[in-house]
């Protein structure tokens, strides 16, 4: 469901904006909005996934086996350029995932 969450946010301008404004309430709303547009799926995240999304814990999200393309696209969409530059995100991500290897991202 982590991948689905990131996928749904990245593909919607409204969702990107809403997540940027209030990540915690956005995540809570997304989980409760099953079958309600603009988050047609919704779903349940684990407590650790929820916390990692709200705090944008790069190492945790990567370590959970998030799909690398979806993860990077999601992070870029919600952080760049408002929170940081692309180069800053590249550096922060490299530092966060160093030593974590390659978690299996098959679903």
């Amino acid at each position: 469901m982590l991948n689905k969450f990131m996928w749904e946010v990245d593909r919607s301008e409204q969702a990107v904006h809403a997540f940027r404004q209030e990540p915690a309430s956005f995540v809570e709303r997304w989980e409760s909005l099953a079958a309600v547009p603009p988050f047609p799926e919704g779903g349940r995240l684990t407590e650790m996934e929820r916390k990692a999304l709200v705090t944008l814990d790069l190492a945790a999200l990567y370590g959970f086996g998030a799909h690398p393309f979806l993860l990077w696209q999601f992070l870029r969409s919600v952080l760049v350029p408002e929170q940081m530059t692309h180069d800053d995100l590249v550096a922060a991500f490299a530092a966060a995932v160093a030593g974590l290897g390659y978690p299996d991202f098959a679903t």
Partner: protein
Amino acid sequence: MAEIVLTLGVPHTPLLWTALRAPVPDDLLAVAARFRSFREKVIAAKPDAIVIIGSDHLRQFMTSNMPAFLIGKADTMRGTHPSEQRSFGLPASELRGHCGLASALLGRTQLPIGVDFSFSDEPWLDHAFMVPLLYLTPALEIPVVPVHTNTNAPPIPHASRFVALGRYLREAIHRSDDADRVAVIGSGHLAFELGGPRQFLGRSPDPEFDRIAVELIAAGDGEGLVRFCAYDRLLAAGNLSFQFLNFLTCTAVAGERPAVEAGAVTCRFGSEPFFAWPGDWS
């Protein structure tokens, strides 16, 4: 009886779209030159249809429904998803599709023996299609048949199936009377990583992979490519290197003949593949 007039393999790194704007930085001059020369090849080949084989980037597909290979069958189709406009500056586009050729490749009433295609009457092309098309056919005037492949969401099809796909497309294009002159374009990467520890290194994550891959493509060695492209070898080359598999399909489309051009152009984004095979009668 259509003729395959040209087969190309090109990169689709979306960050090229803004990075290649004038003045083109020195490290990207060779990439820009290669796209220009490949565009000239397309113009000279005078195709009346393009079959483009590209990796779905979880845009047309998602884990709710994940096909191996999908043919887009529509007279018009959208290009570029909103997040790609936002992230990469790629333009939203409307493309002409070649519905007749798409239907012929799908088998019209029955799927062909050996390839379990999915199809979409509402194809929406992501940057794997749009970056090559915007550089090779900027006016987007030639109708396309998109072939989406799952090279990003494991389990992905075995490498041998990408060769089988290419052999099938070659035979089916030749058999079709829906177009006369078909160009085939494959879109992918060499060793490539995104969202992992080796992304944005400023160089390829695995130059040895690139060297061997280019040698095998140059030789047109379909069976050698299958042996080389074991899942673990691709993963070791970078977490999204599976997109190289689209070039196995191109090799087979070209009859597993040696490429006339096979190179890895190094730049800030790693090693960008540029492959060209001759037309049927060259």
